[in-house]
Structures are given as structure tokens and as C-alpha cells.
């Protein structure tokens, strides 16, 4: 698995901070794509109330993240800078979900609900095959 993030936040004032923000955002986006789910059972009990059940990716679950950037200054402020905090998170979730759908396309799959737990993917494959 390879993850490449190319972002543009204008002139890079603190490149290390930018990479840190991108890395954190990508991991956040992975969590939304693959793990994070709030689930209530039939009696209205929240069953994902701790971090054992409400699952976030840890360092061991994250692929190597390659970053690169273009620098297009913003015309609306004197430094030419733009936000970077959410960039990784915004791009990552659809990228991961679309990659899964692309992999399943030969089976005729065009949609799959988030988060993509392994069972959800397996069930989608079973349904597509039957």
C-alpha cells in the first residue's frame, strides 16, 4: 500500500509543521474511511462507547505517507499562505473508499457504505457474486 499526499498551502513557512499536519489529517481520514462508527443497539445502548470499541487507527495501522507540495500563493493575504490543517483528512477518506470501490469494480460494485470494516467489504463481495 502506498499513500501519496500532494498539497498546496501557499509558501511553506514551517515545512515540518506542514508535514505533521498532513500526516495527522491522513490518519484521521483513514479512521473515518475504515474504522470510526457510532453504533446503538436495539435498546438504545451505545455499544461503541470506549476506544476499545470506537476504533481509531494507531501508528501500527498506518502506511508510510509520502508528502509533496506545490506552492501557489494566495492573493488574499500579504503572506500568501493558506490553511493546511484539514487537507490530509479531506482528501484521504474519499481516496481510500474510491480505491476499494475501484478494486471491486470487476464485480460490478459501485457503492459501499463507510466505515469499510473487513466484514462490510466481504459482505459486499458476497452479494455482488450472488
Amino acid at each position, binding site marked *: 500500500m502506498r499513500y501519496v499526499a500532494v498539497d498546496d498551502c501557499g509558501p511553506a513557512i514551517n515545512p515540518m509543521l506542514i508535514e505533521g499536519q498532513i500526516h495527522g489529517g491522513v490518519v484521521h481520514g483513514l479512521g473515518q474511511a475504515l*474504522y470510526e*462508527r457510532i*453504533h446503538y443497539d436495539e435498546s438504545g445502548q451505545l*455499544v*461503541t462507547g470506549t476506544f476499545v*470499541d470506537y*476504533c481509531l*487507527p*494507531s501508528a*501500527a*495501522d498506518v502506511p508510510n505517507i509520502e508528502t509533496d507540495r506545490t506552492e501557489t500563493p494566495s492573493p488574499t493575504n500579504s503572506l500568501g499562505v493558506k490553511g493546511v490543517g484539514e487537507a490530509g483528512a479531506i482528501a484521504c477518506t474519499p481516496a481510500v473508499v474510491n480505491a476499494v470501490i475501484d478494486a471491486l469494480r470487476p464485480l460490478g460494485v459501485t457503492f459501499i457504505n463507510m466505515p469499510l*470494516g*473487513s*466484514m462490510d467489504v*466481504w*459482505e459486499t463481495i458476497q452479494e455482488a457474486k450472488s
Partner: protein
Amino acid sequence: MIPAEFDYVAPETLDEAIRALADGGEDAKLLAGGHSLLPLMKLRLAAPALLVDLRRVPDLAGVRANGDIRIGAMTTHSALVRANAGLASVAAATIADQQVRNRGTIGGSLAHGDPASDLPAVVLAAEGTIVARGPGGEREIAAAEFFRDYLETTLAPDEIITEIRMPGTEGWSFGYEKFNRRREDWAMVAVCALVRIESGACADARIGLTHMGSTPLRATAAEAALRGQPLEAGAIAAAAEQAAEGTSPPADLNASADYKRHLARVLCRRALERAAG
């Protein structure tokens, strides 16, 4: 998040620990690594009045592998990994993260009786025994007799596990396959396979299943299908198809019973392929 009030003792000998546990009666609990017991206490699902900590009791930790394998009850998962004692060490390396492995012990893992834990099925498949000491003396319990139900074992409340014994593995090869949501989670399903190969054929097979029932299980149908067969892809795949035979795995949010049966079959095939080399 805050446990109910409790008393705490850390005896210096095994006899003292046995006495403290007996004197404490029903409300006393042993404390090993605390990584199963303390979370339960913090959630107030357990409220022992007395904790008898085993950490000062000498000679309960350590792995000896000459002929058979003997693992002291207080051996941490990381010490077991470092001991390089075959299947048990490989399985222990998949438990949670380094912090948990540095505290959690094999004795605590077996006594807790969680069918999602890694080591119970390993000890069951290896046909190991659990050595326990209580006021009435010592007894050795076969793993097949030890696990009774979800979080329930046949260990008496006044008994302390001192050692886990497993037969030597010379002539056996093994594979361990665990599937979880995240790298550091409990197993959705795990499969351990031990095979003895004689002139290219499988002379014997022992397959353990984690999280496929309320206790760890043996995949007896797959074992039987493999015995006497050549250990090649076709025979392995055919045997692995029977890995979930007779099981009714507990479903949860992330894995239905059907999905778990599918996982058991796939993981069994992979574990056998690994064992076959």
C-alpha cells in the same frame, strides 16, 4: 473509571499467597499483570475486596524448554516472545501492544478464560496442562478440561496457577494466523496449527481456534481430514474447508457468525500452509 475500594497484599511466598487468597474468601482475587482484571474493576464489572498480588512470589516467571516446555504463570507475554519457544512465543508476539505485553502474563490470560485471547487456544491445541496449587495441594489440569465457558474455567477460586506445561515440539512445525481490525486488537478469529510430518505426509495435526465459541476450540474435523494426507495445497485447502465445522461463533458488531466461519477457513489454510513450509 475509578474502581471500588479494595485492600491489597503482596505476599513473599507462594504458601502465603495461597493463605491470603483462602482467608479472603469469595471477595479475594489474584492480581498478575492486571491488564484484564483492572479494566473490569474500573468499569465496576468486578469489585474484589482484596487483591493478592503475585509479583513478589519467587520462581513463578520463566520459560524452560528442554524436552517439554514449562512456562511459569507470571511469565509476561514479552518474556515469552523473547524465550523463542515456538508457537506460544509467536502467538504471544501478536498480543496487543508492547505495553500490554510487558505486563500481561500467561497465567492471567488462561485464568481469565477469554476465548478471544491468543494463548488459551495455543495451550489447548498443544495439548498442554495447567499446574495449579491450592490449600489442598497441587494438581495438573489438562487444557481440554480447563476452559468451561466464557470467562469461566475449572480452576477453583482458592487455586493459583503456577506453571503451564506443553509437550516438546520436536518433529512438529506450526503456523499462527490472527485476523483483527487493527494490528493491536484482540483476534476477530485466530487459528493455530501444529503438524507432524513423516515422509511427506501429515502424521498428526492439532488445530486450535480462537474466538470461535465461548471457549477456545479444536478444529477436530479439519484435523481428521488432514491426518495421513500429503501436506500439499490440495489436501490443506480441503481440510481447511472444515475448520469451522460444528462451531457457533459469537457474533459482534464487527464480525457476524458467518464471517467468522469464513475467517476460520481462510486462516486455517494459511496456518497449515505456513506449517507445511
